């Protein structure tokens, strides 16, 4: 059964080709197009499940040693040999399950959401292509194929952000996402070059087996460059700026690409390279610090936004920061755990936002909503469940994963990072409940006409909401921590890939980072009370956040405005997202544009074009001079011929 892994990415590829070629040419009915797209994803999901169960049958120790499924040689040139091959191990199959599963439900949702759009064929073709690329990314057995998926999802992201390309904002947002990602990809490429230069292979098995021969400096450089790639794709500081703008795309796209799957590929990549990262403590520290910084920075930007999708976008960045914090402190499986639960509840939140937009005639500004919870009950209740999950309320998926990250951070000795993470968790609870309160409760502030149209979405949209809501609730129970009497099945399942690598951590002489799993044994003995205490603390912080939101937006809705006026400077700075876009614009975009303009005017126009024109002018002048020779007198020509002959003869006789 595991042999059939190549079918998982194949079905979306077929769906893409069918919809993109046949569907476009013959202008097929949109029912056929959407049916094909969903069926492709359904089959893909089905095979992911089958492969997953086949993998479960194998003994846990052998699960990371399943032979790669190599389809054929791809690039063979000198020492470089790359194959199209798929790797099946607990990590990749979890990712494949999450990607194909969430994609499947979002595809179904899209059938309803994109119902009236004229570009529905193009939409489903791109969406299928995206899933194909994403599955290629997570199932690849070498860095190069992973990079193909990496670039492919970037391309699809660009295409789908700019889906409504006839308007300026989506087109520009697409370009921005593409260019910012390119910066990160540059790091990824350099890391690949370094790996190949030092190890002579790009296959994961070969690289990780040979990793111990690398010296610390090289490994640190490689892992830092890989992290640069991850910051681009996963929207971390300093390359997060594209993600909020990416919300210009259709909402299901925001849900699938910019919340649930693509943006988590950086976390997946770091978890995949956990052996390399374990060898480079400095890189680990960098990842953890950037992750924590992003978590709190993005959370604070989400506090004051009024656009539903933008709040969710900043929330996504913040949650991605958590995942990086987790992998940065060595808790790789906690990071992947949060990746999975986040895919459920954040995917659901975006779909819920889409459903709200659907009800409110496309309105995004939460100031023009309110009091609609009774009118759209399914959307409201599923949205609320996801909000409880992301806020970290015990019993919901987000609680288990977020708490595991915070505990692992604390346990590995990063007290300050824990503090930052906990503060960010409080902010998360606050802005998410602010979103819920302002959107669904209070007085309805929409116009009469819009109010009249408020209606629940059709079942094709609400069923995915309900399914994802169930997952947001129960998804966390695969990873109940030991302290609460669970077995943390999720952690055990990932153990063969992400568990301790004692031989690799032997390199870790840098004291800032102690991989969490190394100290886990000790923590079990004397840290139990501490763990419970921290758990209680983070729940308390979340509840405080919710309480503040309740006070400010339900009890005393006039207070936020007063506070805003009291702290006008701070409010303006945060509301304008710390002016980061403007700073980037001034520092990088303007100067790059100026450089480009300089080269265009001075070099392209001034040197290349001018030299070409100079040659043309020279020829013109020369022709003007030389044509005087053509006098029209044949005897002159004859003299020339004779003189020429004489010269030749003299030359020959010499």
């Amino acid at each position, binding site marked *: 059964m595991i042999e059939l892994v190549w079918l998982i990415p194949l079905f979306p590829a077929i769906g893409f080709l069918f919809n993109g070629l046949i569907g476009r040419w013959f202008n097929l009915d949109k029912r056929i197009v959407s049916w094909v797209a969903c069926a492709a994803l359904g089959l893909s999901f089905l095979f992911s499940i089958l492969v997953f169960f086949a993998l479960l049958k194998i003994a846990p120790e052998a699960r990371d040693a399943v032979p790669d499924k190599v389809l054929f040689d791809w690039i063979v040139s000198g020492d470089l040999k790359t194959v199209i091959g798929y790797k099946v191990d607990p990590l990749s199959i979890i990712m494949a399950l999450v990607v194909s599963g969430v994609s499947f439900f979002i595809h179904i949702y899209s059938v309803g959401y994109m119902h009236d759009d004229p570009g529905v064929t193009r939409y489903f073709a791109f969406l299928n292509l995206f899933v194909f690329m994403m599955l290629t990314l997570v199932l690849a057995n070498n860095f190069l194929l992973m990079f193909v998926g990496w670039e492919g999802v970037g391309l699809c992201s660009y295409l789908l952000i700019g889906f409504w390309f006839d308007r300026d904002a989506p087109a520009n947002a697409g370009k921005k996402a593409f260019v910012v990602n390119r910066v990160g990809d540059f790091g990824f490429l350099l890391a690949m070059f370094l790996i190949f230069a030092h190890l002579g292979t790009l296959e994961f098995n070969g690289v990780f087996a040979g990793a111990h021969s690398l010296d610390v400096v090289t490994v640190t450089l490689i892992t830092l460059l890989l992290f640069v790639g991850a910051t681009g794709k996963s929207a971390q500081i300093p390359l997060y700026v594209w993600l909020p703008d990416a919300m210009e795309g259709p909402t299901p796209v925001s849900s699938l690409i910019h919340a649930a799957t693509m943006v988590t590929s950086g976390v997946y990549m770091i978890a995949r390279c956990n052996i390399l990262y374990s060898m480079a403590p400095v890189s680990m520290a960098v990842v953890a610090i950037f992750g924590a910084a992003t978590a709190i920075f993005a959370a604070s930007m989400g506090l004051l936004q009024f656009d539903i999708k933008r709040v969710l976008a900043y929330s996504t960045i913040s949650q991605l920061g958590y995942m990086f914090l987790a992998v940065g402190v060595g808790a790789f499986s906690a990071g992947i755990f949060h990746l999975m639960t986040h895919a459920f509840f954040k995917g659901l939140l975006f779909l819920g936002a889409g459903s709200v937009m659907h009800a409110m005639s496309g309105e995004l500004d939460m100031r023009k909503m309110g009091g609609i919870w009774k009118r759209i009950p399914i959307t409201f209740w599923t949205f609320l469940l996801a909000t409880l999950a992301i806020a970290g309320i015990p019993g919901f998926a987000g609680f288990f994963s977020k708490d595991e990250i915070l505990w692992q951070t604390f346990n590995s000795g990063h007290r300050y990072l824990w503090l930052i993470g906990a503060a960010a968790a409080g902010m998360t609870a606050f802005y998410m409940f602010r979103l819920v309160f302002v959107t669904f409760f209070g007085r309805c502030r929409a116009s009469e006409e819009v109010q009249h149209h408020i209606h629940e979405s059709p079942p094709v949209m609400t069923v995915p909401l309900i399914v994802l809501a169930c997952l947001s609730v129960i998804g966390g129970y695969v990873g109940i921590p030991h302290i609460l009497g669970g077995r943390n099945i999720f952690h055990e399942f990932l153990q063969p890939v992400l568990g301790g690598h004692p031989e690799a951590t032997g390199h870790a002489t840098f004291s800032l980072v102690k991989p969490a799993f190394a100290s886990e044994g000790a923590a079990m003995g004397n840290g139990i009370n501490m763990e419970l205490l921290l758990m209680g603390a983070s729940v308390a912080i979340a509840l405080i956040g919710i309480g503040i939101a309740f006070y400010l937006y339900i009890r005393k809705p006039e207070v936020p405005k007063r506070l805003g006026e009291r702290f006008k400077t701070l409010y303006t700075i945060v509301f304008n997202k710390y002016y980061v876009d403007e700073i980037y614009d001034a520092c990088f975009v303007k100067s790059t544009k100026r450089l480009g303009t300089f080269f265009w005017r001075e070099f392209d126009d001034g040197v290349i074009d001018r030299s070409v024109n100079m040659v043309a002018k020279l020829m013109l002048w020369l022709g003007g001079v030389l044509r005087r020779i*053509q*006098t*029209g*007198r*044949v*005897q002159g020509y*004859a003299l020339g011929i*004779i003189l020429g002959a004489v010269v030749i003869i003299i030359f020959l006789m010499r």
Partner: protein
Amino acid sequence: MFSSVPPIYFLIVSAVIFAIGAMGVLVRRNAIVIFMCIEMMLSAVNLTLITASHYLNSLDGVLMVFFVMTVAAAEAAVGLAIFVLLFRGRRTIKVDEINLLKW
């Protein structure tokens, strides 16, 4: 009879005729005279070829002469026809007055 005469005499005669012809082409204005001068040059060349052919005991040169004569005959036919037409049109066949084909 010929064998007693050294080839250099033939070649000198040939060169002199050629030079006279070339000079005529360059300095005369009447197209027909120029044409005759060209014929002289061709004859000089023929003489050279025959001389070489004779002294080298080869038929190549003689063969060449036939070609030259054929070409000269064809040239005479075409050339004279051009002159006739030219004269009809412009009332002159002086080459320095026929200089339309110039810059």
